[in-house]
């Protein structure tokens, strides 16, 4: 049991994917170990969302391998992955606007059948985000952007993720809300959930992460400990404007 496929939680090698003629991923290598919080940064159009969609089974890669918990990912249909603990909070949150807040959370636990612990998890989400409890009967489409992001996070927690993938959770949020969301991400990480965090806000992401990857034009151009990336002149110049 020493091959890297079996050791890391997520093991991605030479992953390629294209939309018609456009090559969005040109051979991505990436690992997430159990319990890690990994930041993936990159500019607009670098292929971050594409990578997460492939990992969540929504897009089929052209070539390359993905092992999740030691098994090739392609062995599962997209809807079976969440049952395996692989959960994506998509870009733009993807809440169900015409379902109530509570129903959205229930959708998060769709693939579970352990009713008593589902109830307990819902209580936990409400404790984490009291705002959601106050609005649990409201249609999710009427929530503010920040509340919708809380709902998206809460809904993801309802699936009891092993590996949580977050696609730009800070997008479009006021600074206060960004702080709140990042505190929550750290809290989730502290509970032992492995996290792959995609962010435009490179500084913030690298401050909370243990390791980081930089994705440019479909290729990983650097990967290092988050602390080192934070002080790397190249990264600072490209992603932090200094």
């Amino acid at each position: 049991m020493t091959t890297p496929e079996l050791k890391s939680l997520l093991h991605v090698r030479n992953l390629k994917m294209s939309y018609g003629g456009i090559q969005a991923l040109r051979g991505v290598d990436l690992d997430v170990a159990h319990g890690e919080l990994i930041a993936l940064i990159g500019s607009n159009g670098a292929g971050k969302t594409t990578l997460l969609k492939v990992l969540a089974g929504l897009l089929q890669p052209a070539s390359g391998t993905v092992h999740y918990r030691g098994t090739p990912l392609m062995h599962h249909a997209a809807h079976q992955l969440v049952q395996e603990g692989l959960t994506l909070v998509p870009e733009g949150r993807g809440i169900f606007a015409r379902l109530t807040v509570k129903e959205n959370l229930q959708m998060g636990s769709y693939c579970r059948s352990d009713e008593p612990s589902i109830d307990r998890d819902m209580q936990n989400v409400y404790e984490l985000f009291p705002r959601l409890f106050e609005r649990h009967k409201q249609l999710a489409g009427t929530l503010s952007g920040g509340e919708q992001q809380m709902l998206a996070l809460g809904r993801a927690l309802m699936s009891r993720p092993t590996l949580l993938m977050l696609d730009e959770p800070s997008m479009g949020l006021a600074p206060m809300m960004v702080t709140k969301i990042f505190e929550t991400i750290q809290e989730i990480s502290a509970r032992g959930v492995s996290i792959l965090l995609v962010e435009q806000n490179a500084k913030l992401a690298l401050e909370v992460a243990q390791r980081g990857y930089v994705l440019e034009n479909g290729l990983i151009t650097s990967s290092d400990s988050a602390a080192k990336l934070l002080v790397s002149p190249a990264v600072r110049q490209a992603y932090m404007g200094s």
Partner: protein
Amino acid sequence: MDTFFQQIINGLVQGSVYAMVALGYTMVYGILGLINFAHGEVVMVGAMVALSVIQLSISYGLPPILALLIGLMVSIAACMALGYSIERVAYRPLRKAPRLAPLITAIGVSMVLQTLAMIIWGREYHAFPSLLPNGSHILFGAIITEVQILIILVALAMMGGLLLLVHRTRLGRAMRAVAEDPSIATLMGVNTNSVISTTFMLGSALAATAGVMISANYGIAHYYMGSVLGLKAFTAAVLGGIGNMYGAMVGGLLLGLIESLGAGYIGDLSGGFLGSHYQDVFSFFVLISVLIFRPSGLLGERVAERS
């Protein structure tokens, strides 16, 4: 006899049938953005299968009520299988095709079903045996038969059951989630294909029941009965706001009432020039007016939200 109340009763009965069929159109549209023009033929198949099973049961000496129940059950099962197959064979391969493709396919499926029905059951009108007590009651000076009372009650029960299913169960939540965004629903672990199949089967079960109701009410069934009925139920769905389940129910009842009041008074209104057989004109007048003046229907939000 009071014409007004009589037409109200007739309209409610007819409207219940429209509502049940309209729900099938609206649920499929809600989840796939597709107008399943073959749905009317499912109603016809429901009536025909029930007719054959009832004739067979009677010939084996079963009591009429039992024969009707067995006929209804078999017809519901057959139509659910049919609805499942239509989606699986005709629509699923076209899920990513331009919208015109499934629409044309739907018309093709209707023609195939109609032709098959003609081959199996022939071109003639079949008498649908009357299996229920022939009693009737006087209500506000109008006559309502026991069959009509039963039609309204069964329609209410089935529609109520469907609403509970859609709004109170895990399956119903999944259906609404898929209708809103299939790929996000997939991320939640929903098998969208099986939810879509289930939606077709539920709509077909309602259609089968509607087919039996309408045949029992008029006492006839024939291979061509699905097309005009389907078009009217589609009108009802558009009138209520396609994609909206409450809209389908309201639209169905309203269309039944409009049609029946129209038919009751058209003679007086036109000085005897036009007879009650012009009642179909009202439905299509409603369809055209809604499409021109309020394409989103009475309860619909926006139209053309998907492209």
